[in-house]
């Protein structure tokens, strides 16, 4: 079958708030369309990184093609494009949506709509997708499907009365979803004879095949040998293989034509050449215009990453390079710290992205890392008119040379039950939020709108939000732009020596508070030495907070009983081992953990 009958294809994604059951439903669809037997299924086929399974979130988009025999007797091809589930990856989400013709909206029958649900629905509607609501978890005792249906109609304004009511977990009524996909999600359009126009919505690196590009063919046809060009990056290559997605495997096919979702390989060496959102066209017969919506995603959060063992620097570089093969949004460049030695300043899409990379470096590459406090990109306007994009606080020019500084802002939407409105507003206030307004979703729930400085939300805003709303608040944000702010660099001096790796940029109104907390925290983390150690926080030459680590006066082991020397030795070894994991600053030894602990100043 050279050209697929477009009317028998359904390209769709599933959107949901975290934990509402997106991946479980995806698994169920795969299972019920016969692609895998349940015995072959590992729980949640699509989330295939260990990290994703553990955290219950999807980090990378996954795609799978299955064949469904509908009640009308016809066979349909389902391309299910699973999207990342976190605000850090909003752009990836938007590109995945652009590859679809419809979206299944999964809403938890007990929880109802959350901020992220709304954000994703609006994204889907922006892409002109038909949204098919599905009420999940009806097996829960606290499920209220009718209330949730009404809520969807009221809040989102889409028809939901005859939405499938299912339990993806037990499989109950999932068959209704399959029929609804056939009936309510439109078939793709597009002319297979037109010049090639394909949207890249993801890519992975394979050491044998090079980059594997995930794409949706909007117009035209592509097959082995087609010379292609990426319209934004300008990279060119000849297609080696075209194919579609089995469960966890790539299945080559003759060609991909308009309306189809699949992959291409073309011996491309670097994912940087195949940016998500770019348009693939034919070099010999290019289309007139690229698809709309491409943008180069840029890191928003930066931090320093250093190997705990200085000798592992080349290993860290290799590991970062390998991760970057698959993740064009990860950036890094070498930097040196007096305190931490050689390392890298790394850029991430957000804090979750940072944590994921950090965990993968530690788990998959066995590296032990010291990370500095994450910061955002500040714009420093110098008196000579020059503007610096500052990612490392150590590079801040002398204050005399600074005209003013700007910090990035986000516009945030927080959905919260009414009883917690007060405490959430208080939190936003503390984080220098600018209140924009509030809308009631229904009697008991409201949507708060704030502008917030990005650097106030990257640390622990999400945790604070959850703890102050007993888990009921949900949160979503968009970049808004830069505004001028009174920012200062806070330095930490340990035994009178400045520790560069602990410096950070902070708003002047919170400098004192943060300085005090830093000193307190460091006092807890730095072990006693034979001499007294002052810990000071300073802005410029002014000391704003101080703590002292008292001198060690006693460190004696208790009774050594019945000749149990081994136990005694273990205690001493532990002491010695602890010392090995320290960084020498002047004549003070600072545990690696101290550098990390200051990231969590707001533990309550």
């Amino acid at each position, binding site marked *: 079958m050279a050209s697929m009958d477009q009317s028998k294809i359904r390209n769709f994604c599933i959107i949901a708030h975290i934990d509402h059951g997106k991946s479980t439903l995806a698994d169920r669809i795969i299972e019920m369309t016969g692609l895998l037997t349940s015995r072959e299924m590992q729980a949640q086929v699509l989330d295939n990184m260990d990290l994703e399974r553990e955290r219950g979130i999807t980090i990378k988009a996954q795609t799978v093609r299955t064949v469904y025999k509908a009640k009308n007797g016809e066979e349909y091809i389902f391309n299910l494009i699973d999207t990342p589930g976190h605000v850090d990856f909003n752009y990836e989400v938007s590109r995945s949506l652009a590859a679809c013709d419809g979206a299944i909206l999964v809403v938890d029958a007990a929880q109802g709509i959350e901020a992220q649900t709304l954000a994703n629905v609006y994204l889907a509607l922006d892409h002109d997708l038909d949204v098919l609501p599905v009420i999940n978890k009806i097996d829960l005792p606290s499920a209220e499907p009718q209330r949730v249906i009404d809520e969807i109609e009221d809040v989102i304004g889409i028809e939901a009365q005859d939405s499938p009511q299912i339990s993806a977990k037990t499989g109950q009524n999932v068959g209704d979803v399959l029929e609804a996909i056939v009936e309510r999600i439109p078939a793709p359009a597009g002319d297979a004879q037109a010049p090639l126009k394909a949207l890249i919505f993801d890519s992975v690196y394979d050491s044998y095949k090079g980059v594997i590009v995930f794409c949706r063919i909007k117009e035209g046809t592509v097959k082995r040998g087609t010379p292609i060009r990426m319209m934004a990056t300008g990279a060119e290559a000849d297609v080696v293989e075209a194919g579609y997605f089995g469960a966890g495997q790539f299945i080559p096919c003759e060609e991909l034509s308009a309306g189809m979702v699949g992959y291409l390989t073309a011996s491309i060496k670097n994912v940087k050449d195949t940016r998500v959102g770019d348009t693939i066209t034919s070099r010999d017969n290019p289309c007139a215009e690229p698809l709309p919506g491409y943008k180069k995603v840029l890191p928003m959060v930066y931090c320093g990453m250093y190997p705990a063992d200085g000798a592992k620097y080349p290993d860290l570089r290799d590991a970062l390079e390998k991760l970057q093969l698959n993740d064009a949004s990860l950036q890094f460049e070498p930097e040196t710290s007096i305190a931490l030695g050689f390392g890298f300043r790394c850029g991430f899409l957000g804090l979750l992205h940072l944590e994921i990379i950090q965990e993968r470096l530690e788990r998959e590459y066995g590296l032990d890392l010291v990370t500095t406090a994450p910061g955002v990109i500040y714009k420093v306007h110098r008196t000579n008119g020059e503007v610096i994009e500052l990612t490392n606080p150590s590079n801040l020019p002398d204050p005399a040379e600074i005209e003013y500084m700007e910090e990035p802002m986000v516009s945030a939407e927080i959905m919260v039950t009414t009883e917690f409105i007060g405490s959430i507003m208080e939190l936003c206030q503390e984080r220098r939020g600018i209140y924009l307004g509030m809308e009631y979703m229904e009697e008991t729930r409201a949507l708060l709108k704030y502008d917030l400085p990005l650097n106030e939300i990257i640390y622990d805003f999400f945790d604070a939000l959850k703890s102050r709303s007993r888990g009921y608040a949900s949160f979503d944000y968009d970049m808004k732009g830069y505004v001028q702010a009174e920012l200062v660099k806070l330095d930490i001096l340990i035994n009178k020596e400045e520790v560069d790796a602990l410096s950070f940029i902070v708003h002047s109104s919170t400098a004192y508070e943060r300085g005090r907390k830093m000193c307190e925290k460091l006092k807890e983390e730095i072990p006693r030495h*034979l001499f007294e150690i002052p810990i000071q926080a300073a802005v410029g030459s002014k000391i704003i907070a101080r703590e002292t680590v*008292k001198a*060690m*006066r*006693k*460190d*004696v*082991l*208790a*009774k*050594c*009983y*019945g*000749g*149990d*020397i*081994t136990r*005694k*030795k273990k*205690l*001493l*070894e532990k*002491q*010695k081992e602890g*010392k*090995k994991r320290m960084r020498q600053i002047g004549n003070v030894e600072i545990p690696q953990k101290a550098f990390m602990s200051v990231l969590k100043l707001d533990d309550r």
Partner: protein
Amino acid sequence: MCENGKKQSELELYLHIPFCVKKCAYCDFLSVPADKAVQLCYVEALKGEIYQQKTLGLNRRVTSIFVGGGTPSILDGGQMAQLLEAVHDSFHVETDAEITVECNPGTLTADKLSCYRRQGVNRLSIGLQSADNEELRLLGRIHTYEEFLQSYMLAREMGFENINVDLMSALPGQTKESWQQTLREVLSLKPEHISAYSLIIEEGTPFYHRFGPGAGEERLLPDEDTERQMYYDTKDILKAEGYERYEISNYARQGFACRHNLGYWERREYLGLGLGASSLTEGVRYRNHKKLSAYLAGDYGHEDKHRLTRQEELEETMFLGLRKTEGVLLTEELLKVYRGVFERLEQQELLIRENGRVRLTELGIDVSNYALAEFLQSG
């Protein structure tokens, strides 16, 4: 027993009695409360282990025996006698060997003490901890100070001329004054030996749940300055009364240092018998297993067996030997291996080398963990 005239090598013996009337609230040693029947079975099992050593044992000159616990004095006089008889049957015990039994006030009787005497026990180690009854109660001790006095006097009457008293400072609720009072009360009895430890809150003990980090009652512990003062008072008061500090926590009148304990710090060979007891023989360290039921069934299996490397022997020589105030005799090998460590610690005034020996300074003893850890090979 030495028929061919070849010099027999010396050996120290440790016997473990893992029973107590009741476990103290701070204790993390291997001991359990147990009924008479279990104790009886244990004594039989321990005898079995002792006799198993007979072939080897008769070729060793035992210079000290320490019966520790737990509370060894919980056993009947007859049971203790059987154990020591088994030892005499199986080992060549020197006539002047130091033989210690650890006792708790409240478990000692004239009958038991006379049994000990008959079996050659010549040293008692009595766990007092405090002369303040309120402090004793808090520690979960089963006795009062008055009961200790009775036991102590009884022991003297029965002819024991070498008695150690265990004391503990830095107790919850303890003051400088109450600690000084404890020291003075005990000094008035003129024991030959005093062990004075600072309380350490060990994980897994009831104390940890009351006084451990964040447990809620830490404020009852003496603050750092008070605790330090108690420690200095201990040194000063005992010194003024003629007690020499010969090890970090141990003080003795002239000639009464505990030979058995010194053996550990000097790396003399010792054989531990009984549940969980540790041994060092022929350059190998190992420990008996800790499963009581298996032991009672005659399983004397060893665990954590480890032949020491030369490097480990040197490490031990240093971190054990430096616990003694006289320090360690310097050899060329030690000087070669630890030159850098010596110099660093001397610079920090923690260590001193003189007359061919190396020892900790007063400051070095105060922070001995820090100093001793330096002698372990990093890696």
